[in-house]
């Protein structure tokens, strides 16, 4: 049975990878299907569920080559400039998620304090973009895999689709972010 479900998952991943089954973008689709591995933990609040991945899991998302454009923002609740730009990502998500754009907010909050800080934050702000928690202390290994230019400072954002990839170690206003995105979807 375990083997069977594993095969099904593998098949789904392959199908998605070959782009034979384009997923319809819906609000809050389950993004666990985009990840390369199962979450190492699932945190449940009253209204939100946040999955916790190591970098192996996240790498699956970052290397997707389907018909979507992904906007992946690295942030944390304790990062002031990240919080300031978060509404821009939410606005981008609201405006473009019907146009094959998926916004993913990758939190780098301390995993030990996620239930106390991250869950209430996501609930209070009523965030509509996907939120997941990256729990992988081996930063020197995974940071260069996100982008070799990344110093590790946040906020940082990757925008990509199968044709193009951009990395930004900076804060965005909505206009800047939208302008950047339009370079990917037009």
């Amino acid at each position: 049975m375990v083997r069977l479900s594993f095969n099904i998952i593998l098949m789904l991943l392959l199908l998605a990878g070959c782009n034979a089954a384009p997923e319809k973008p819906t609000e809050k689709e389950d993004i666990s299907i985009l990840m390369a591995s199962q979450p190492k933990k699932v945190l449940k609040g009253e209204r939100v569920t946040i999955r916790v991945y190591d970098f192996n899991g996240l790498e699956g998302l970052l290397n997707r080559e389907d018909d979507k454009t992904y906007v992946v923002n690295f942030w944390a609740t304790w990062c002031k400039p990240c919080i300031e730009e978060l509404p821009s990502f939410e606005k981008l998500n609201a405006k473009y998620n019907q146009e094959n754009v998926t916004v993913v907010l990758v939190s780098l909050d301390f995993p030990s304090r996620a239930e106390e800080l991250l869950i209430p934050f996501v609930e209070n702000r009523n965030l509509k973009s996907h939120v997941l928690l990256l729990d992988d202390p081996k930063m020197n290994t995974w940071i260069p895999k996100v982008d070799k230019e990344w110093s590790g400072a946040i906020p940082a954002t990757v925008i990509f689709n199968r044709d193009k990839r951009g990395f930004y170690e900076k804060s965005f206003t909505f206009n800047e972010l939208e302008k950047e995105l339009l370079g990917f979807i037009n």
Partner: protein
Amino acid sequence: MKTFKTLLFFGLFAVLSSFIVSRFYNDGYAIGDKAADFKLKNIDGKMVSLSDYKDAKGYLVIFTCNSCPYAVAYEDRIIALDKKYKELGVPVIAINPNNPQVQPKDSFEEMKQRAAEKGFTYPYLLDEGQKIFPQYGAKRTPHCFLLEKTEEGNIVRYIGAIDDNYQDAASVETTYVANAIEAMLAGKEIDVKNTKAIGCSIKI
């Protein structure tokens, strides 16, 4: 044809200018560069320079602050590094690169307070006017620069993280900075000279 030429011109211009911009953006020290000395105000009100340390063999310059949880997570480990390596001639020199007007938690007063609470054993300097961190190329807090004092000046030997586990000191597998200091003091080649870590962007 004319359009093609114009396009080519603009293309070339774009490529060149992006190159210049990225060169400028990445400015800062690389391994082997000579690091500049500075004169910055310590929490005790006195000015501190690298050249004040006559007997030093090197310096562990760490850009750090009060407000960044990653920096806070490393405070005890920075104190331990200072205690151990000061004796061997490599003191920690901590510099807060943040603009206190943007991040009030990193004001001079708050720096004093935090240092007293934690019992910092090393100078904790304010990069007043934010001139020093761009020179070094610090991008985040905490960000370490290990310098070796030589006859040619203070040479950058290691840039990056303190170790490979910010979450839990007990789970650290590789102590990057300590390994680099040990190798430097033994006159050996440093294995890992550059590492990356998540940190808070510097507030300007």
